[in-house]
């Protein structure tokens, strides 16, 4: 199912939580929506999951406009949309299997059919033997698995994940993300991941939209965003991830405690070429490498990052940067405070 948003707006009092968002989310892939807290993510997800109506703008699922449905149509439409949450939001009065059964119960599925479907879903999320377990006895990862099974019960076309891994530790996050990826492939549904974690985008998303201040500041395939980030917000997200700021040690080998003046980003095949030494030989200008690393995006494409100082005068530096760009390297100059 394809989702199209047209100039969506929603304010609370004088706060413009969502301020004119237009997006097209293609079907059958994992789409990330990333933003800092207060960027409008939660509001946006409430709008596209039909929990709230926008002040202005339109939401389309395939060719059907869904933001102006009547109460009954809305309830029917929501039953075709799955949703999982940061805090799992499971029913504590029900055990794991009864939680998964809930969406089937409310549409009046016969008991025998519910039992069979619940067993199948628990099997899918790897909890076949925990059906009778009270929710409080499950770990965070298991709770999210139950929530995923529950969200998939009615064979939705779309699965919204609202900060679904934010409350989980890194290993559990990883296993939940692989599960979501597997489910996406198996069931061919559209998954929309709302998150503030760039790791999530890097590891599972095909495309991503970056939100800031209620607007989309950047949108595109994840590999493009990683290789050629345009907006400051995106660069900031990447810096936390690949360690161009001092606080992060992940993914990056640092030779120097000081940050360099330039961030170079390479993608795909360029990571295998000796670009820097070639330019040094051509121009006689040296690089001082401060830190560097390579990471996999979407499990396949490699994105390399180097933080360097470039020797020489300003003009010479500009020449080098121009030469780097010819090689397809994305260059960002750090603003020194």
């Amino acid at each position: 199912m394809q989702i199209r948003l047209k100039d969506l707006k929603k304010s609370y009092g004088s706060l413009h939580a969502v301020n004119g968002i237009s997006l097209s989310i293609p079907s059958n892939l994992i789409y990330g929506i990333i933003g800092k807290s207060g960027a409008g993510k939660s509001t946006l997800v409430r709008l596209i999951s039909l929990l709230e109506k926008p002040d202005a703008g339109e939401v389309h699922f395939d060719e059907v406009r869904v933001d102006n449905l009547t109460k009954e149509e809305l309830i029917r439409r929501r039953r075709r949309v799955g949703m999982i949450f940061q805090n799992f939001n499971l029913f504590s009065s029900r055990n794991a299997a009864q939680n998964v059964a809930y969406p089937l119960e409310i549409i009046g599925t016969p008991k025998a059919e519910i039992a069979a479907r619940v067993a199948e879903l628990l099997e899918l999320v790897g909890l076949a033997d925990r059906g009778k377990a009270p929710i409080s006895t499950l770990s965070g990862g298991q709770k999210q698995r139950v929530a995923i099974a529950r969200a998939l019960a009615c064979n939705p076309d779309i699965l919204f994940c609202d900060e679904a891994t934010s409350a989980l530790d890194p290993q559990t996050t990883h296993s939940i993300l692989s599960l979501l990826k597997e489910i996406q492939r198996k069931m061919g549904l559209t998954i929309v991941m709302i998150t503030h974690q760039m790791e999530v985008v890097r590891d599972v998303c095909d495309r991503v939209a970056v939100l800031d201040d209620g607007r989309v500041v950047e949108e595109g395939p994840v590999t493009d965003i990683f290789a050629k980030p345009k907006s400051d917000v995106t660069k900031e997200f990447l810096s936390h991830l690949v360690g161009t700021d001092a606080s992060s040690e992940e993914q990056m080998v640092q030779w120097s405690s000081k940050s360099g003046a330039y961030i170079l980003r390479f993608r795909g095949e360029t990571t295998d070429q000796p670009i820097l030494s070639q330019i040094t030989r051509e121009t006689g200008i040296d690089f001082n490498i401060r830190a560097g690393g390579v990471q996999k995006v979407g499990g396949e494409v490699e994105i390399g990052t180097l933080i360097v100082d470039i020797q020489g005068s300003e003009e010479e530096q500009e020449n080098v940067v121009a030469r780097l760009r010819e090689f397809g390297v994305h260059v960002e100059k750090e603003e020194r405070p």
Partner: protein
Amino acid sequence: MSAKILLLIWNSTLQTLSMVFFSTLFSLVLGLPLGVLLFATGEEEQGGIIPMPLLNSVLSRIVNVLRSFPFIILMILLFPLSRLLIGTSIGTTATIVPLSIAAAPFVARIIETALKEVDPGVVQAARAMGSTNFQIVRKVLIPEAMPSLVSGVALTIINLIGYSAMAGAIGGGGLGDLAIRYGYQRFRGDIMLVAVIVILVLVEIVQIAGNRLSARLLARR
């Protein structure tokens, strides 16, 4: 104490039990929908699923007014209603009417408070799955709030035992009536003592049973 007196106490106890039982039942019938409505029409931030500020504040006022009425006065005011419904305004059966009406707003508040304790995220999830409002109330809110609801009902019963004793003072029958007529007016301190002890035991039993049931419901989660 003679067998006659013991029989009197036994009969009064049965009257009290019947008053409390039926008034609890009717106050739940009146208070449960009112409590759900109070909760549902409340502010969205507090979990209101169909926010209706005007209706909510009107209901809330009515509940407050009824709750702040001294019970004895309310009972006298409701004599005509008892006469209309039961045919008389004195006796155990007639007292059930004012007891139920006096307890209903209390029940409504207790239910509202219990429902407010339910995690709003869970309600949001139920709504996102396409539950109707009725399904949210019946299959989510009430089961999720059940341990608090059970404690609340126990509290209601205890209150009604107290109220029913007061009702005795104006011809309501039961243990309160016995304590006033025999114990106070005929200077039978022993009968008054027994009546008070029976009331105490009833309250204690309800409290313990309520706590146990609520704890057992919680332990199963």
